């Protein structure tokens, strides 16, 4: 350890490992992963999000599997929470997931084609 800068470098790298523990103010991706969601293909969708986040090294985004949202006929359902804005997407496959990631999570623009509703919490 030769300088404070060295220490700060280790800290910045290591903080990515622990940001998840504590209050999360970043973007949250909720994937409906009840039996219906899983059978409709929610798992590869969730894996896709995880893969993209790793690729882009975005430590402020969390991915959480959640229970049944209710509309089983249009699964897989993914919800994206940015601040107080909640966007619900339906019939998400890996391709749509990729679009949501680049256009919405990174670009900040909702992917209109797949939304079922947009409302404030």
């Amino acid at each position, binding site marked *: *350890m*030769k*300088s*404070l800068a060295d*220490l700060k470098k*280790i*800290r910045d*790298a*290591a*903080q990515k*490992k*622990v940001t*998840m*523990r*504590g*209050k*999360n103010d970043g973007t*949250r991706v*909720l*994937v*409906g*992963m*009840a*039996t219906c969601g*899983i059978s409709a293909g929610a798992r590869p969708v*969730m*894996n896709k999000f*995880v*893969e993209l*986040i*790793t690729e882009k090294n975005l430590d402020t985004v*969390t*991915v*959480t*599997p*959640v*229970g049944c949202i209710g509309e089983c006929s249009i699964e897989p359902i993914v919800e994206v929470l940015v601040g107080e804005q909640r966007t619900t997407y339906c019939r998400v496959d890996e391709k749509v997931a990729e679009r949501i990631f680049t256009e919405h999570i990174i670009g900040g623009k909702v992917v209109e084609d797949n939304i079922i509703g947009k409302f404030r919490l």
Partner: protein
Amino acid sequence: MFERSHVLICSGSNCISRGSKSLRNEFEEHLSNLGIREEIKLVNTGCVGLCEQGPFVIVYPEGVFYAQVKNKDIKTICEEHLYKGRIVEKLVFDEALSDKKEVKAFDEIKFYSKQTRVALRNCGLINPDDIEEYIAKEGYHGLGKVLTTMTPQEVIDEMLKSGLRGRGGGGFPTGRKWDFALKNESDQKYVICNADEGDPGAFMDRALLEGDPHSILEGLMIAGYAIGADKGYIYVRIEYPTAIEKLKTAISQATNLGLLGKNIFDTGFNFDIELRLGAGAFVCGEETALIASIEGGRGMSRNKPPFPAAKGLWGKPTIINNVETLANIPAILHMGADWFARIGVEGNRGTKVFSLGGNIKNAGLVEVPLGTTLREVVYEIGGGIPGNRALKAVQTGGPSGGAIPEHLMDLPIEYETLVQAGSMMGSGGMVVIDENNCMVDICRFYLDFTCEESCGKCTPCREGTKKMLEMLEIISSGEGTLEDIDRLEELAKMVKNSSLCGLGQAAPNPILSMLEHFRPEFESHVVEKVCPGGVCKPLIKLVVTDTCIGCTKCATNCPVDCIEGSLKEMHKIDTSKCIKCGVCKNICPVEAIVSV
């Protein structure tokens, strides 16, 4: 690989003793079976604090707080929560769910909301075996700031400004202790971490050593720089195997990163830390006895002065700081003395960690700002007494402290107020005593401990503790007289005034404080031959009251077959044969057996 979820498994000694060691293997197995092992990060952390409800598993990013988790529950958590995203409500700690069944954040749970965690800031949140997680929480930044921008005198001034006082119990200002050692010139100086925690019921230091060992190392290094020492010792008892293991890992990781060793931060400052294992003698927590033990001698105290800051280990200037004191130091230097001085009250700055035990609902580890009242700790954080029994007293300071009676519960917790009330801060044991406890018996318990632990060097302590114990035994057996109580008090004062070291000087404290506040309870043992708490065996009689439902459980379990009665009829205890073991009382489903 981005890990979408972190699962924190509490691996403090209290949770391990409740079975948390095998939880990780269960997780590994079930997560692998589900094919999601690499998406989830498993972290073994230190003590989370609410030991009564352990073992804990905390799942992030949601922050779900699972309590009393058993091996068989892991499959459910994996399949439901981690695979399908459904929180397993029945396993969540009651108070961590709102009325609407929403997950509450960590600091919204009542047990934690009243606490301020400075010393315990990382306990239960980071992996103690991973130095990077400590650094991520600003670890070693205090040391970096000290070494690169401050002189030793500036460090000491900052410590004086913070108002931090020794957390081992004495409450001596840490900055002043360091100042003495800095001013004593010598070719070699030493710093020692006193991790010889020995009070019955106290486990604050163990939790810190196990949960955040790097903060102790960093505190010790800052202390070393401030006084001009390049060598530190951590004196830890061999009865703390997990703590020793964590410390060893921490020392080797810090050495590998160049945070220990030569020329740290390229400033020319060298520092090494060595572990010394004590055999578990209580007296070795006293600083001169501790030094004797590190030097390889028998753990016996000596006269002061000279104080260790002038002539300590191997005759060189030495400072000895307690674990909790050291854990505060990196935070003070990193955040600044002003930040620290905003916590607590005038003259008593910062926080104190207590291990809350005895007859209390939420037994565990709590850290509160100084100046918090005892009532807040017992009722708001501790959740009160089980069965809504009446509070009798709170015992602080372990075998060196005293009991604070119910009517003084609104006392703010400060070094001076506790002494005025006849007790002391001590290292942080806090035992809640209710109406079913006997004060004479508690005194007897503590004297039994100090008598055993007396090193035997000075007569008042060696003989005095033994005589006081014998007198308490006579009183609790109902064979004492009022004069015995007076004699006990006289002897207690004598031992307090004439013993060589802190052990003997403080050993009579439980007796003196209980006599001050609970003298009538002692008197009823010798005059009416009654133990009001129903504890002292020679004075009690176990009887069956008419709430008995005739279930025969007591009769079946009595070891001496002294209970008679047939099914669905009231039972009777033959008191001539009864050995008062209490098995029947404990097993009775309707509390029909009472001691009178």
